[in-house]
């Protein structure tokens, strides 16, 4: 991964990030933070299962025998209606119809994006609130302890220092809602 070896350290750069505990100099916190908790792993597995369920029919080519592979079930039902009752004429037409398939898919994407945006906002807001609450609690409880090193400095500067780190680190990560929101944004 790293090409510029021999940076002046011991020279053995074999263990870059795995043994972070041994080398406190390399402050690569995000590496540790990225490791998924048990709950996170379960969530990831759930998403993976959903993705597999969607991809498998495509990968197995289950639509190949069809006239129109992977057509919408709603459209198939319209065909079935005319099979059962060939004389049936729809007696009402949509007030507005998207002029092309592209416009239609854009509107569908808009619908999904609106929903995903609201979900992401919800989870992001609550995550932020929770982190804010824990930061305040930590500030109140351990604020005096952390800032004792250099007393000469202004107290508030030291006391507040750990707080933005805690909040700002993984802050704008609204959870899996964003995963859905990223894709279909028009």
């Amino acid at each position, binding site marked *: 991964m790293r090409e510029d070896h021999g940076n002046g350290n011991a020279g053995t750069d074999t263990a870059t990030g795995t043994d972070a505990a041994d080398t406190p100099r390399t402050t690569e916190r995000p590496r540790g933070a990225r490791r998924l908790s048990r709950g996170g792993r379960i969530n990831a597995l759930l998403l993976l299962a959903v993705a597999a369920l969607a991809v498998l029919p495509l990968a197995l080519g289950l639509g190949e025998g069809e006239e129109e592979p992977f057509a*919408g*079930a709603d459209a198939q039902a319209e065909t079935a209606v005319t099979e059962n009752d060939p004389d049936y004429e729809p007696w009402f037409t949509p007030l507005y119809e998207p002029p092309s398939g592209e416009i239609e898919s854009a509107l569908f994407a808009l*619908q999904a994006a*609106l929903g995903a945006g609201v979900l992401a906002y919800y989870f992001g807001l609550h995550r932020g609130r929770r982190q804010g609450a824990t930061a305040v609690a930590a500030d109140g409880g351990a604020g005096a302890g952390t800032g004792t090193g250099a007393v000469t400095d202004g107290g508030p500067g030291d006391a507040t220092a750990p707080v933005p780190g805690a909040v700002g680190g993984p802050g704008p990560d609204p959870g899996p809602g964003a995963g859905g929101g990223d894709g279909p944004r028009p």
Partner: protein
Amino acid sequence: MHIAEGYLPPLHAVAWTAASAPFVVHGVRVLTREVREHPESTLLLGASGAFTFVLSALKIPSVTGSCSHPTGTGLGAILFRPPVMAVLGTITLLFQALLLAHGGLTTLGANVFSMAVVGPWVGYGLYRLVRRLGLPLMVAVFAGAFAADLSTYCVTSVQLALAFPDPGSGVPGALAKFGGIFAVTQIPLAVSEGLLTVLVMRLLSQSSAGELIRLGVFARGNARQDGQQGDEQGQDRQRKRVA
């Protein structure tokens, strides 16, 4: 499950609209009361509606070689009870009918009945039943969301079969035909919806445990059963049970 505009005979269209209307009116009343008495739940209500918005926009391939979409109504039905979902589902269907030519105004009543009335009630009913059997919360959530999704498409099949009986085999034959198009296609999608609803509920149990207790999702199972449990302990227990 969207019956296309004009694809139900006028008599059927009127009948399904009449059947849905009381549920939607009642739902509006319940929803406004909920917002008035618990303004703090507005956000979660919005999130429940948003979940339906996302899921009903996603057309996913299925084992039958065709595509369909989940409904997303199970989550809101479990959280806020089915009447609220009658409103949120109707809003989603109206959006699709007016902007996407998906579904329609004449078939809105029938589509509301399947997606916003029967689906939420069946899902909620199964959720409660599974809870009462003492099974873990997330099993109940999965079962509820799965049932809400699948029952919606079963109702659509019945609606179309009643309106367009098979010339030879009548309504049963038509039901088999429409059921093959809708219900069979829907099974893997209903599983997906169940898993996604479990995922969202897991995230909610971390972010909004207090809200879930107020709504009775947690209280019925854990907090009350296990005595005096703090939010966080209840959450932990929840997570362990899920795993």
